[in-house]
């Protein structure tokens, strides 16, 4: 039977990335789009960890370090997005990216 | 110094006018007029001194500058620079290899120039490359086929890191146009005393426009030329856009966009020339010295880009559509300078740039047929359109399109008479069209409309005015004895000759005679629409009571019209007065294009 190799992880990540893009394309709700972004970030992070395991020079953990930063920054980004969203919601009662359209005349 | 004065006095005038109190309109008017007169003084001096020994030939100036540059280089390098300069022309391909060649694996062409390259590298290490380049540019400029007639040359560093210089000069091609500019500004300012709205801005912009125009005709550095060229655009936009008629905003932006498209093409061509073979030169004379060596495909390319840029300005069919709009909307004085001088920027550009920088392309069959064909279309189409106009001003505008066609036709013919006629036509049209727009303006100020069908019998009411009008319109028609006749005849003679003249010369394609036949109906049409107009407006008895109250010309109007009328007659009787300036220049130019370019 097949051995689990780098390519398998990469394919899983690619699928998650594709799903994330699908979410971003099909959703208009800001929070849902944010969920799609999380999928993409996870795909990239999974890539980093897998590459770190399979093809980086031994002894170096660059990929894992990168992943930690991805997770931290994702958290910060989500916090900002939701803070702005809450503020906007207090003004307009909508979270729809398209409905928030006073900017488009 | 004279050229700098003529160019920048108006700019100084603009600053002074802007500093004057807005409320004191008369002070502004007189100050502006004063500056226009002041700028006309050095121009008069120029015309008197040109060729009469009061000037110094460009060749001398340039050689002296080159010697000074060599003398200023580090001492150990001077001998090497002089050695390289001895054969300035044949050393030029080394530039490119110097810049780009791979020393380890040279191609054959590069091997040849490796010796020169080594010398250049030695100069670079000795810190004298810049000086050598400068001296080289000047040496080539002095050897340029159009340098012989260039006078009053001023030369100075401007942007050393891009080899951009402040270089001005005049020859027989630019002299009449500079004179025309200086004169028209004085006349227009006097005429414009009737402007009441935004006086300060009006005169300031007008003065800025003058700086741009005189600069365009004097600049011998391509970059400098381009800056002046663009400076012309902006005041024109505002002059039409603020003081124009009801549809002025549309006309102004249309004018601006059309000419901007042309400018941009000009810019690309300029950069391509600068980059070409690593010469890194904006010096027009240097470039003409080198242009014979450019390969034909490059020349075609450059020619087309430059042609487009200038053709929009002329304007050549099918780029002419901005012209009637601009003219109809523009205030009278702006129309006058637009027709009188701005259109000539295009014609001047053909001679100064297109044909000298791409001589082989200019005499190729494609281009001769192309330019000649466009000339014919301009003549006939312009006349037909003029005939169909109801608006007096738009009739005059289309007559400009038609008359500028002669410039193209004579140019395509490339015979002595053709070129002389063509350049003379630029000057003559500048005089007669300026006059016609003034005439239309005078009438419009009284009638407040320009509908040809509603006029009639003006001759009875305003005899002096009608007298001027007859001179202006007949000059434009080409009546023998008036100036328009001479240039049109020369153009036709030249273009008839072209085919036989160049029959034995395989390098030059003569303008085919059938094309001239096609242009001939244009003359008849011109006579037709002008006579018809004169009849409709000036002849007959007054149609309307209102015309009975029209005053005849006031002193300002007479002052503006009289010099132009005088010129129509004087240059009709004694064209030699203008041709005398041009003959040598145009001869050298023509010889260069026809033979020098073919190497």
């Amino acid at each position, binding site marked *: 039977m097949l051995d*689990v*190799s*780098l*390519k*398998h992880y*990469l*394919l*899983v990540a*690619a699928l*998650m*990335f*594709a*799903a*994330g*893009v*699908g*979410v971003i*394309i*099909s959703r*208009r*709700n800001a*929070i*849902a*789009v944010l*969920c799609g972004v*999380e*999928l993409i970030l*996870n795909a990239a992070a*999974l890539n980093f*960890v897998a*590459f*770190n*395991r*399979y*093809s*980086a020079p*031994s*002894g*170096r*953990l660059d990929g*894992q*370090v990168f*992943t*930690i*930063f991805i*997770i*931290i*920054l*994702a*958290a*910060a980004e989500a*916090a*900002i997005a*939701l*803070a702005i*969203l*809450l*503020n906007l*919601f207090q003004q307009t009662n909508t*979270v729809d990216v398209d409905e928030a359209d006073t900017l488009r005349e | 110094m004279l050229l700098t004065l003529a160019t920048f006095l108006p700019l100084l005038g603009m600053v002074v006018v802007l500093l004057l109190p807005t409320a004191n309109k008369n002070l502004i008017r007189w100050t502006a007029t004063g500056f226009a007169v002041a700028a006309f003084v050095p121009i008069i001096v120029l015309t008197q001194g040109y060729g009469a020994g009061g000037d110094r030939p460009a060749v001398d100036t340039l050689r002296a500058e080159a010697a000074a540059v060599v003398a200023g280089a580090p001492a150990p390098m001077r001998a090497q620079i002089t050695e390289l300069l001895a054969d300035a022309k044949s050393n030029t391909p080394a530039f490119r290899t110097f810049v780009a060649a791979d020393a380890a694996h040279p191609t054959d062409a590069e091997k040849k120039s490796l010796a020169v390259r080594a010398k250049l590298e030695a100069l670079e290490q000795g810190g004298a490359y810049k000086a050598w380049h400068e001296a080289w540019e000047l040496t080539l400029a002095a050897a340029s086929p159009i340098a012989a007639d260039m006078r009053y040359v001023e030369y100075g560093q401007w942007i050393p890191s891009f080899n951009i210089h402040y270089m001005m000069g005049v020859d027989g091609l630019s002299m009449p146009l500079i004179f025309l500019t200086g004169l028209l500004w004085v006349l227009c300012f006097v005429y414009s005393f009737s402007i009441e709205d935004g006086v300060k801005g009006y005169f300031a912009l007008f003065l800025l426009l003058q700086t741009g125009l005189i600069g365009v005709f004097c600049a011998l550095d391509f970059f400098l030329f381009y800056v002046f060229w663009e400076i012309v655009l902006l005041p024109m936009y505002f002059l039409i856009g603020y003081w124009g008629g009801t549809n002025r905003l549309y006309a102004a932006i249309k004018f601006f966009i059309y000419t901007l498209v042309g400018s941009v093409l000009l810019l690309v061509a300029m950069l391509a020339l600068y980059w070409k073979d690593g010469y890194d030169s904006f010096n027009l004379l240097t470039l003409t010295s080198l242009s014979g060596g450019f390969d034909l495909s490059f020349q075609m390319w450059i020619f087309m880009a430059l042609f487009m840029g200038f053709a929009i300005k002329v304007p050549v069919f099918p780029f002419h559509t901005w012209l009637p709009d601009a003219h109809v909307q523009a205030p009278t004085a702006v129309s006058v300078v637009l027709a009188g001088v701005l259109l000539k920027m295009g014609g001047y550009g053909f001679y100064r740039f297109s044909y000298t920088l791409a001589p082989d392309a200019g005499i190729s069959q494609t281009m001769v047929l192309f330019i000649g064909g466009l000339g014919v279309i301009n003549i006939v189409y312009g006349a037909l359109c003029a005939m169909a106009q109801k608006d007096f001003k738009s009739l005059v505008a289309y007559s400009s399109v038609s008359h500028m066609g002669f410039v193209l036709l004579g140019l395509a013919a490339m015979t002595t008479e053709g070129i002389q006629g063509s350049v003379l036509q630029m000057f003559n049209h500048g005089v007669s069209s300026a006059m016609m727009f003034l005439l239309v303006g005078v009438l419009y100020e009284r009638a407040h409309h320009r509908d040809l069908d509603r006029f009639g019998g003006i001759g009875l009411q305003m005899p002096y005015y009608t007298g001027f009008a007859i001179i202006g319109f007949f000059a434009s028609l080409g009546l023998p004895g008036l100036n328009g006749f001479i240039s049109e005849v020369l153009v036709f003679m030249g273009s008839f000759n072209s085919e036989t003249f160049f029959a034995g010369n395989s390098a030059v394609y003569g303008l085919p005679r059938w094309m001239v036949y096609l242009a001939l109906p244009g003359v008849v049409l011109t006579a037709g629409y002008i006579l018809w107009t004169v009849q409709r407006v000036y002849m007959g008895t007054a149609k309307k009571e209102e015309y009975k109250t029209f005053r005849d010309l006031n002193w300002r109007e007479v002052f503006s019209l009289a010099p132009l009328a005088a010129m129509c007659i004087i240059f009709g009787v004694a064209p030699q007065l203008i041709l005398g300036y041009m003959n040598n220049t145009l001869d050298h130019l023509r010889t260069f294009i026809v033979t020098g370019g073919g190497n």
Partner: protein
Amino acid sequence: MDIDFGTIMFFALALVAVVPAFMVVLARDIVRVAFWLLASLCGVAGLYILLGADFIGLTQVLVYIGGILVLILFGIMMTSKDPLRQKAGASGQRSVVTGLVTAAIVFAVLAAVVLGVGFEEGKGRSDGSPTTTALGEALLTDYVLPFELVSVLLLFVLCGAAYMARRRREDAHA
């Protein structure tokens, strides 16, 4: 035919990561979107551990699932009166189809890329032993600068987010 434990675990976790990821595209309401995302992120955490990145796996659970997802759910609750009915913004079948088709194309391209020859395997293959200590050392030596900087980032993000989400008291205060 021997199927080792690692292989089974991989496929199980891969399914847990990928299937919910696509359910995020398909889900009807916004709460379900969030919960499918939760499942997917758990799968990824498992994959991390399978790859020997135990610390990352735990961080994933703590920060992502414990932090970000809670934040998202919190946002959903705050901004919606009836979250289970609130559509997740997909304006019907068509946009779901668009999403799936795009996803398919993206996946096809990426699959071609990741299955290509450019990714050398096993050059410096690590053995998959726990990495917490080594990771800590890396963060405090080679990566000490980003590590410190990210603390500044979190500081101003916290202050900024607090300022942003705070009720507008300052208008009265000012």
